[in-house]
């Protein structure tokens, strides 16, 4: 690892540690304990040094205590009940003030300790990058923030670039190993066919090998089988398909090398059927070209068409991924929903490559949130979303659900998308975030544009701009949530006492809670609380707060409003 990164991160840690001053908090702890003793036994005021607490008292209170302390020391002076009560009352006020200071100090220490911990984790993750680990976007963001203080931007970019490449390679390697465990690998034997014979066959069907680049011919020579190539070319010819080698030679060679006549024939027949079922006036050749843009449709789902070098590693370009199975399953799925496959391939063919499970899972989420099917079926890119529920929650909490419904492709947003932060800033500054254009709700350019740091919000400062508050409770439970794949069943949460109480007291509508003006997605709370129940982590104030605040962009004031509501539920001393 780059020694400079370690040096900088350690320097940053030391800087933060300097602010962790435990002396004050120990002193306050001592005072609190002494004052509690005075409350129990006012006579102990005699041994207490009033000078130390002078700053917390009014002149009158101080003089009063000093007088009483002296009186306690006089044998002949009898302290009355009222005087004892006065001591108790002053001490009790004092105690509250000191406790407040203590809490402030403690929060500061906790915050800094947490920062040190985060940097320690970052150091650990960076070291791991050199040993099959990878850095998350949060790690990279934090690293950029820190490095920017110590070196110029070009150096920072160089370091981040290097770490990104290492991360990419490790992510790829890990994915391959995972996939390899799940799927049977079909290794395509190297055939090394004769180039002259290949040239003759291609010429026979009207294709000039001299137009094809060497890298593409090599694929064909290495993995092609004459009979298979001839069969595929026959099918194309029978269907009057002529492929323009100037534009699609890579795809053409990929299909000849890795597909077979059965798959090509099936896809052609499906296209014909789709055209027949479609009311659109389209040319078969044009639609076939759309399919040709995705050669993986023509390859079976088994992976690997190269020789494996070692047990755990594939080099780039040594394998091909097939998506024929995904294509068949997704075609059946969308056709059953009444969708026109011609529109699908023209608008968003890549969704047909996705695992069918991902499409089904996303549909389940859309249905759960009562998104009308005509909305998601007319915005097919929404099926690419990796966590649509998170985006929907955010739009609900920012009161922009209608905008989402009219612009449903935005459901692919991550919960920390800049757009969400800019909407908050626009609201704070009383600037409109949305406008109506041709009867449709649209966001202004300063909300959606990814460049120019519109409204002063950038990837690096978004949290600061809205004074986002990250309570400690939120981070503690993340590890339990991250390992859980949710199945959209929140029955246990729905029957949970605290959720029922939330519903009774704070429900705004089916989709949201209203905590004294702070709107929170109800389904988000149900989802995360259900996951915590399953992990035996529910039942505490912190767990409920976590489920409520997870991913929400809240400032400290809003967080405290929620906290008060949750504490109220827990302070009722109920039986669960």
């Amino acid at each position, binding site marked *: 690892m780059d020694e400079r990164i370690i040096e900088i991160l350690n320097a940053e840690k030391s800087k933060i540690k300097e602010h962790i001053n435990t002396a004050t908090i120990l002193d306050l702890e001592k005072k609190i304990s002494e004052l509690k003793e005075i409350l129990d036994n006012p006579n102990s005021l005699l041994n207490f040094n009033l000078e130390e607490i002078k700053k917390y008292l009014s002149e009158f209170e101080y003089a009063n205590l000093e007088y009483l302390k002296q009186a306690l020391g006089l044998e002949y002076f009898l302290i009355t009940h009222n005087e004892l009560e006065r001591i108790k009352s002053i001490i009790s006020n004092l105690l509250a003030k000191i406790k407040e200071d203590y809490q402030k100090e403690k929060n500061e220490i906790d915050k800094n300790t947490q920062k040190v911990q985060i940097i320690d984790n970052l150091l650990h993750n960076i070291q791991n990058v050199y040993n099959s680990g990878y850095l998350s976007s949060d790690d*990279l963001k934090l690293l950029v923030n820190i490095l920017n203080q110590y070196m110029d931007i070009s150096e920072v970019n160089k370091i*981040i670039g290097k770490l990104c*490449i290492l991360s*990419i390679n490790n992510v*790829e390697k890990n994915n391959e190993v995972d996939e390899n465990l799940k799927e049977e690998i079909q290794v395509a034997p190297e055939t090394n066919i004769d180039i002259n014979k290949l040239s003759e066959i291609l010429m026979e069907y009207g294709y000039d090998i001299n137009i094809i680049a060497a890298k593409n011919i090599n694929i064909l020579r290495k993995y092609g089988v004459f009979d298979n190539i001839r069969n595929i070319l026959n099918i194309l010819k029978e269907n009057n398909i002529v492929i323009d080698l100037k*534009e699609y030679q890579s795809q053409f060679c990929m299909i000849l090398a890795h597909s077979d006549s059965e798959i090509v024939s099936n896809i052609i027949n499906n296209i014909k059927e789709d055209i027949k079922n479609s009311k659109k006036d389209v040319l078969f050749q044009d639609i076939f070209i759309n399919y040709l843009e995705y050669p*993986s449709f023509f390859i079976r789902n088994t992976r690997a068409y190269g020789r494996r070098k070692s047990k755990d590693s594939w080099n780039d370009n040594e394998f091909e991924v097939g998506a024929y199975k*995904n294509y068949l399953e997704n075609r059946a799925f969308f056709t059953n929903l009444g969708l026109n496959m011609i529109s699908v391939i023209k608008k968003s063919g890549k969704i047909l490559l996705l695992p069918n499970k991902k499409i089904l899972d996303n549909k389940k989420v859309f249905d759960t949130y009562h998104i009308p099917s005509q909305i998601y079926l007319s915005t097919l890119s929404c099926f690419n979303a990796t966590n649509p529920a998170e985006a929907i929650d955010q739009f609900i909490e920012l009161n922009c659900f209608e905008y989402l419904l009219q612009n449903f492709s935005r459901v692919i947003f991550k919960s920390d998308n800049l757009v969400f932060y800019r909407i908050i800033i626009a609201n704070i500054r009383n600037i409109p975030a949305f406008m109506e254009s041709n009867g449709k709700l649209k966001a202004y350019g300063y909300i959606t544009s990814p*460049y120019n740091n519109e409204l002063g919000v950038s990837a690096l400062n978004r949290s600061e701009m809205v004074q986002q508050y990250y309570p400690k409770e939120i981070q503690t439970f993340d590890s339990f949530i991250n390992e859980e794949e949710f199945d959209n069943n929140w029955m246990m949460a729905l029957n949970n006492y605290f959720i029922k109480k939330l519903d009774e007291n704070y429900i705004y509508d089916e989709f949201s809670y209203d905590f004294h003006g702070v709107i929170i997605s109800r389904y988000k709370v149900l989802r995360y609380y259900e996951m915590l129940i399953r992990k035996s982590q529910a039942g505490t104030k912190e767990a409920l707060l976590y489920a409520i605040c997870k991913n929400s962009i809240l400032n400290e004031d809003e967080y405290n409003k929620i906290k008060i509501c949750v504490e109220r539920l827990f302070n009722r001393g109920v039986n669960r």
Partner: protein
Amino acid sequence: MLEFLKNIGINDRTILKMINENSEAVIQDLECNSDNAVDIIDYLKELDIKVIDELLVDRIDLFLKTKREIMKLFSKFNIADLVKEINDDYFNIDYIFEEND
């Protein structure tokens, strides 16, 4: 993987995002269409489209086409207006497919 994009100045962060946000199959299909994809990127740059990184991540299928096809899709619009709309909100690239339907 996606070396051809690095060679034309697309940064590693964008490439990492592309790999994370898209299926392995579509990444492979893009590799297969690398020459056309480079032409399309050049064309979008000529039009002064500034959100190419975002389009590569979220609208990767745009780059599976040919430059000719993309020019045809753009030609149905007032290009200056469309470019402004796309730069303001890159999801507006979807207009070219809607009109094509």
